[in-house]
């Protein structure tokens, strides 16, 4: 074994420039993969956090069927009591009860349809960034205050400013006409077109009075420590609500199905790109080895004639390929990890990103950080290592066909 290794090492340096070029190609693609995969996953994390932070939360408790068909009658009884219990368990970062309905909002001359959400003003900021996004005026003051906050585009459409009254007309839980006049105390700007155009919030008890809801509500939004801890969050929720069989617990994938699908599509296109990158590297390796086998046909013939078994020569070749790949990988991973670490420390920002984050009340969004996890780190180098070792077999298989005498005659 010692001699085979020795031979392999010496063979590698027979053509320095070629070896360095091939190792460089491997190193370069390794750097790209080691750096880019974690950044890509870090970007997903930010996307998920940003869209969940605005309104949906990490999970919600609803009545069965409400997510598919949000009917005002399909409401959770004594929702506030349940929310209070969840809050008391101290396992969740944010818990907020919400009642939701659709209504016609009118400023007298203009009318628009909009989503109206009854919220607990004190707790809503724990599950949604909207309270922090109020750009004009203030957020709701109390759970039974007669007031309303609306989206900026909706305010513009209705032509209203802080202090103006909005007439709300919709259908109550009992089928009666729900109507009220509420002054607008705040206007929020979330950056989401949908929310800014079609969204308004009023205090929960005010909502329950107007829409004849009694003590019921439609959703309890919950925020856990991080999005990744979804499973333990759902388990804890199930544990805390096991005495209620009239509700369902929905994770964010179910609340915002489009988000996960979008990420999946992006992942697929990312992996196609990585696949191409790996294929290019693999072909350059294949080329190197094919050349080296061809130019050493004489040498192999001689070795065979001297009594080397084809197996031994094949082992020599495989060892050369492995050594070359490992060299490239080590260089690539060293530089790549240094870069990832650097990005991890200083973050990755593009111009304007910070302003954007500030505007949308998402402090975590100002910089992008790579998602450091062993899988993300090793998937690139691992794929390159496996792929190059597989293609190295192609030239190696040629050796088995060599006839010693004939091989020694080739130039």
């Amino acid at each position, binding site marked *: 074994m010692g001699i085979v290794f020795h031979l392999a090492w010496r063979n590698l340096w027979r053509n320095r420039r070629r070896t360095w070029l091939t190792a460089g190609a491997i190193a370069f693609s390794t750097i790209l993969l080691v750096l880019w995969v974690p950044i890509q996953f870090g970007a997903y994390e930010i996307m998920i956090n940003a869209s969940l932070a605005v309104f949906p939360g990490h999970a919600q408790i609803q009545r069965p069927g409400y997510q598919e068909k949000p009917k005002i009658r399909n409401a959770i009884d004594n929702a506030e009591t349940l929310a209070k219990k969840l809050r008391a368990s101290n396992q969740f970062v944010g818990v907020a009860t919400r009642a939701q309905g659709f209504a016609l909002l009118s400023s007298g001359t203009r009318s628009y349809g909009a989503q109206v959400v009854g919220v607990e003003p004190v707790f809503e900021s724990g599950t949604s960034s909207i309270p922090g996004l109020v750009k004009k005026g203030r957020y709701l003051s109390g759970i039974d205050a007669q007031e309303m906050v609306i989206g900026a585009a909706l305010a513009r459409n209705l032509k209203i400013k802080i202090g103006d009254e909005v007439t709300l007309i919709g259908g109550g839980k009992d089928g009666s006409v729900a109507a*009220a006049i509420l002054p607008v105390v705040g206007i929020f700007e979330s950056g989401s077109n949908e929310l800014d155009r079609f969204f308004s919030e009023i205090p929960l008890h005010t909502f329950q009075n107007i829409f004849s809801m009694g003590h019921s509500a439609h959703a309890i939004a919950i925020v856990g420590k991080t999005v990744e801890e979804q499973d333990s969050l759902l388990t804890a929720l199930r544990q805390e609500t096991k005495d209620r069989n009239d509700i369902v617990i929905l994770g964010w994938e179910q609340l915002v199905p489009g988000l996960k699908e979008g990420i999946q599509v992006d992942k697929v296109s990312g992996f196609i790109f990585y696949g191409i990158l790996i294929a290019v590297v693999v072909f350059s390796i294949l080329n190197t080895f094919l050349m080296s086998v061809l130019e050493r046909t004489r040498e192999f013939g001689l070795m065979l004639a001297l009594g080397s078994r084809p197996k031994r020569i094949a082992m020599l070749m495989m060892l050369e390929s492995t050594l070359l790949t490992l060299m490239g990988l080590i260089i690539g991973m060293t530089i790549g990890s240094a870069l990832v670490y650097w990005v991890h420390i200083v973050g990755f920002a593009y111009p304007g990103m910070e302003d954007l984050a500030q505007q949308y009340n998402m402090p975590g969004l100002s910089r992008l950080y790579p998602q450091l996890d062993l899988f993300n780190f090793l998937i690139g180098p691992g794929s390159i290592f496996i792929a190059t070792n597989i293609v190295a077999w192609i030239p190696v298989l040629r050796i088995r066909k060599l006839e010693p005498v004939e091989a020694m005659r080739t130039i």
Partner: protein
Amino acid sequence: MFPRITRTTMLTALTVFNLASIAPAQALDAAAIIKAAMDQWRGTSSHSTMSMTIHRPDWERTMVMEGWTAGDKKSLVRVLEPKKDAGNGTLLIGDNMWTFSPKVNRVIKIPSSMMNQSWMGSDFSNKDIARSADIIDQYHHSLLETQTADGHKVYVIQSVPKEDAPVVWGKEVLRIRDDYVLLEHTFFDQDMKPVKRMKTSKVGMMGGRMVALQERMAKIETKDEYTEFKMLSAKFDISVPGSTFTLSNLRNPRF
């Protein structure tokens, strides 16, 4: 039903007449039957009371309403019962729709973006209420077959919207009795699958004419969710003052 407004103005009447002279006889018949059925509903004017029951598997609610119509463009409905909703009203003039709620004492115009929303929580959309008479001039009609039922001839008419008609339906199929009572009205989506159906379950004399006394609108897929109308009283071809159909009368009832 009160807002089944026949929107045939003189102009459209003329168009229908003109078409009649060149269209095949069958097409003329179908369009004429539909127009006659619409006219049967309201006459030149009407004043009626009816009840509307919204039924859901776990829930039911009945409202009593009073309605006035004049010509084919104007109608007014006001809720009488339950007490909680009494005084809520809807005014229709042409394609425009206003709603009034005594709770807030405001009249609000329903924007066109809300026309697909349910009317008073029922299985009818605002559009159904406001535009049901579009079927006369916005559709091509053809007589599919003539059946016999209970000693009456029943015409089955298929109405396909014209290319530029602002409707969501792929087609509609109506069954109309020979005395112009509408027995059944089925709405099909663009894939020609039936979506919802209105069925007349009781026909009788009221206010001097033969009308549908009880009708039920239900989605095809969920038959246990429906909205049922019952005619309680009706007068036709009476004089209704023009001031009935004004915003001020919607707000402060005088009629």
